[in-house]
């Protein structure tokens, strides 16, 4: 499921395991992936990010890479995460 974030210009994406736990997505155990808006007819791809602001790897260095708080509110409303997971992600912690 995706969420348009007009303010930040990206969409957030999250997957769940069947027991309600968030899946680790990347080599650094991230639990969220960012899918930037792609140009028309360009392949749409995403990459794992942490919920904390930081330095991005490689050619994305310098981007803040931090989803807005509202992304997690929308994920909660959509039933993708529960309140405990939302609050953990708001704190920049794993859920």
């Amino acid at each position: 499921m995706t969420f348009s974030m007009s303010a930040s210009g990206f969409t957030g994406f999250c997957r769940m395991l069947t027991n309600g736990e968030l899946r680790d997505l990347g080599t650094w155990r991230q639990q969220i992936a960012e899918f930037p808006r792609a140009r028309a007819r360009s392949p749409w791809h995403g990459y794992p990010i942490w919920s904390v602001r930081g330095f991005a790897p490689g050619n994305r260095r310098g981007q803040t890479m931090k989803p807005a708080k509202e992304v997690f509110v929308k994920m909660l409303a959509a039933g993708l995460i529960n309140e405990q997971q939302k609050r953990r992600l708001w704190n920049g912690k794993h859920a």
Partner: protein
Amino acid sequence: MSHPRRNGKSIVSPVRSMRFRDFEVSWASANPYLPGFCFGSADGCLLFTDEEGTRLSDKIRETSPSGEAINGVAYLPMWFAVSTRADVNLLNVLPGASKAHTAVFPAGAHGVIATRSGHFIVPLGRSGLLVVKPAANTKQSATLMSGTTPDSLLYIYSVISLNDGDREVLACAGRAGGMAAMDFTGEDGEARLSTIAFSGLDVVDICALRPDQASLAAAALDKSGTIVLSSNIRDDKRPLTLRFAAVDGIGYRVLSCRGDIYLLTSKGVYFFPKLADRFLNGELFGAVGTKVIPIPLQAIDMSLGQDRWLLVVMLDEVRRYDVQHLHHSASDFIARGKAVEQQPNTVSPRWKTRRIVQKSKQLLPSG
């Protein structure tokens, strides 16, 4: 558990629920100035209370310009550091200071601690460690300590400060990179970080086993709830790895005081009476079982307040446990059938060690 006891003039309840109107708690710790607590909120405010949770003042709003949830507060004389997933904030509480908010470092953090050498240490994940030594009457600066090559990077998720009487040692939870430790001599120059890990390990928290003593003993928590115990986090190459079947949920935090260990997972608090003492006294081997007392609840964080209180941040309240009472009540729990006796599954993984160089570079605050 349910009977209040007298402590001086006041009656102290061993368990107390604290709720605050217009203040969604994201972080809890001891008040550094008075008996009581400091709470951080989901929108970046601070609140100070007494030990019963009564507000001592209005909430403090100007702690983080990002308005993000506070995930750590640390104190040095006259200084506060407040961390969020967006920034690290330095607040000056010097008498007569023109403004409290002194510096903002635009780096998302997983928490913040203070060391006895007078530094704030901030785990920044893949970016490394931020080191700040605050100084009065000057522009603040910080030092970023991190690996410089792809294979020398470590995801630093939490950090503690230990000492063996001579040296100050920083010990880190490094997620898949395992546990890490380095001698800390200040913010300048190079540091050598020793890591120890095994395949599949995901270290999410670390704590001192003798927080009130000169000791490098530490416990680490794997995301699956596995506990790793080391009598010397700096030099130990084969720490003891224990898995208890009674522990359920995603591992969040591990804490130790009075020789006991507390785990927080997504499913509740797990109290291990005397587990730290038994490990450090060499009594954990053989057929002797370990008592585990599960306290089912749904929480987001947990901390210790002045070696006296266990503060569990839940979704709509903070629960305050008297750790002295818990420590002496283990036999009551057992008598009432609230404890599980388990033989831990001792894991014998193939530990791998690394030594990686951390280089320093100076950072200036924004603005």
